């Protein structure tokens, strides 16, 4: 038998088994309506859950992107200070983050897709529940218990198929979201532990940053020292400050010594 037919048969037998039969068939309508409303709120909760997960993943991607930008800046700074080794290290770590960012973006897109699908599913179910409610009231008002049965069966078949479909959609979305939440939890832990600051050496802290800071504070001290010396010897401070931006760290010192000597 064809795939489509097999799925249809199994689906239908499941769906009809899900109906609570009451003694008065008209009561069955109310039971079913109750279940439809419950399912509708379940789908809406599902939409909200998926949205929450999506936002979390978005936030993580942003954090990692900032970190990646920081490593890029560090590499540039290191290179300008002639430390190619540090620049290489920073870029290596950056490339480690790139994979994670790509992964997070893919997850984000997938969650976005789930969110849209569930939103549409909830709209379809809402429309069908509304339609069922109208029909239910008509049946209850118009038919006796004995007459109602066929009309009820007609109304049920469409709605129970939709309920089976939507129930499955929520289940799938939940499963997918749960998988991603586990991974998101792991990344949150990584971010908060600071390990991502230093991808190559877990627990090492941001040593590139430390080294660069140390180098630039050394150079700041030297520059300031040079400026002070220059100031005491009578030359004006502004050129010295400009020199900090343009000249590498080691230069101001010998310059100022030369200047200070003859004065």
């Amino acid at each position: 038998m064809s795939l489509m037919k097999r799925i249809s048969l199994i689906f239908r037998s499941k769906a009809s088994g899900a109906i609570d039969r009451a003694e008065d068939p008209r009561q069955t309508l109310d039971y079913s309506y109750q279940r439809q409303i419950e399912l509708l709120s379940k789908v809406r909760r599902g939409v909200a859950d998926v949205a929450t997960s999506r936002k979390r993943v978005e936030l993580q991607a942003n954090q990692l992107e900032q970190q990646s930008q920081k490593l890029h800046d560090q590499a540039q700074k290191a290179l300008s200070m002639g430390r190619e080794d540090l620049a290489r290290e920073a870029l290596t770590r950056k490339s480690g983050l790139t994979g994670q960012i790509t992964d997070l973006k893919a997850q984000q897109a997938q969650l976005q897709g789930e969110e849209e699908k569930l939103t549409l599913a909830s709209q379809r179910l809402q429309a069908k529940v509304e339609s069922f409610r109208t029909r239910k009231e008509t049946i209850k008002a118009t038919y006796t218990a004995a007459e109602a049965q066929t009309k009820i069966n007609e109304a049920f078949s469409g709605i129970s198929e939709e309920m089976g479909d939507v129930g499955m959609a929520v289940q799938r979305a939940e499963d997918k979201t749960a998988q991603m939440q586990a991974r998101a939890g792991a990344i949150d832990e990584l971010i908060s532990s600071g390990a991502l600051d230093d991808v190559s050496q877990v627990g090492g802290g941001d040593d590139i940053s430390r080294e660069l800071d140390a180098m630039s504070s050394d150079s700041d001290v030297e520059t300031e020292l040079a400026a002070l010396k220059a100031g005491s010897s009578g030359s004006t401070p502004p050129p010295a400050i400009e020199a900090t931006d343009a000249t590498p760290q080691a230069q101001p010192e010998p310059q100022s010594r030369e200047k200070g000597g003859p004065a």
Partner: protein
Amino acid sequence: MIVRILGEGQWEMSEEHLAGLNELDEQVEAAVEAGDEVTFSNTLVALLDAVRKRGTVLAEDSLHDSDLILPPADASLEEVRELLNDDGLIPG
């Protein structure tokens, strides 16, 4: 004839398109049976596209049941196998 794509909705199809659908359906089924993941996803995409292109979307508030039901577009081969199992994906 009414066809449902799980997770997407229902389409009204005219009988003339049925042969084409059956052909694609057989290919999907063969791929499921062979456990051929690549052929499965390609043929499933083709089958669902055929329904979407040739069918007319049913009104959202219609309470018609479907004559044929198709797996969701992002279903894996494993999920379709579960769908075909009685204790599969469909919540009771």
